[in-house]
């Protein structure tokens, strides 16, 4: 915990200097970014196979950007996938399918639906607004 606070404090201390990194030319930054990215992926398991996984997800990320697919849900899925799988199995074994009708689950489902439906409603309103103006 102390290390965490030290890192945060140091980051704030050097914030101005760190922000100047954005002014460095891309050609100078790219080899170091690639170097650190390759090292980071290798050190996760100390296995060269992780470099192939790194390349695959790098290329996948590029194609997702090209297709306007947001990448955050994929990253969230990878981070939370194992936790979700374990707890999903425990809930199913303990309660069967009735866990779907528990109040907290219903509230979460409702919130999810709002998150999905709200942008569509907003888009519909935005599209209808100019047509009303022209009419």
């Amino acid at each position, binding site marked *: 915990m102390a290390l965490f606070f030290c890192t945060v404090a140091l980051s704030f201390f050097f914030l101005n200097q760190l922000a100047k990194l954005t002014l460095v030319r891309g050609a100078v930054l790219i080899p170091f970014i690639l170097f650190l990215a390759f090292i980071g992926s290798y050190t996760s398991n100390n296995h060269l196979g992780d470099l192939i996984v790194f*390349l695959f997800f790098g290329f996948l990320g*590029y194609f997702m950007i090209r297709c*306007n697919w947001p*990448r955050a849900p994929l990253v969230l899925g990878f981070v939370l996938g194992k936790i979700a799988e374990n707890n999903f199995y425990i809930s199913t074994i303990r309660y069967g399918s009735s866990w779907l009708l528990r109040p907290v689950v219903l509230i979460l489902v409702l919130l999810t639906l709002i998150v999905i439906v709200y942008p569509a409603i907003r888009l519909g309103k935005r599209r209808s607004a100019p047509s009303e103006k022209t009419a």
Partner: protein
Amino acid sequence: MKSVFNLRFLLALAVAIIAGYALYASLYWPFRTALFPRVIGVPLLALSLVEMLLCLVSAEKAREGHAVDFEMTMDVDPLVARKRTLAIFSWTLGFMALILLFGFTLAVPLFVFLYLKLAGKEGWVLSLSMTALSWLTMEGLFNRLLHLPFPEGWLFSLWT
């Protein structure tokens, strides 16, 4: 007329195939193993099919109001953008090849130098000092201080 079989459609098709295969494979798995892949696979297959359908229906319409975390700049000539993309893809794959052939310790300074000289067209002083810095980081921090077990390059393992 723009083809409906664009990149967006092909990506959705690839995801649909993966989801379909996962669902098919999970038919033979025990309940505990198959539960989560099935629960994830069904909506994934449905959503990727919907995405494919949307591509077919509105192939020429740009999507509006969608949430993306990053968008590419549109003010660069597509030919230049394609060249740059191919170049960075090639450099990334080349770096991977260097790591496999020479190992991390040699590949990192070699890559930094080659990139700065060939792609960045930087001067000798900057290129050599950055190469030295990358070698120091590699050798001093990762090898000596952190003792990371970097594998030998394939070329060196042939000789030993």
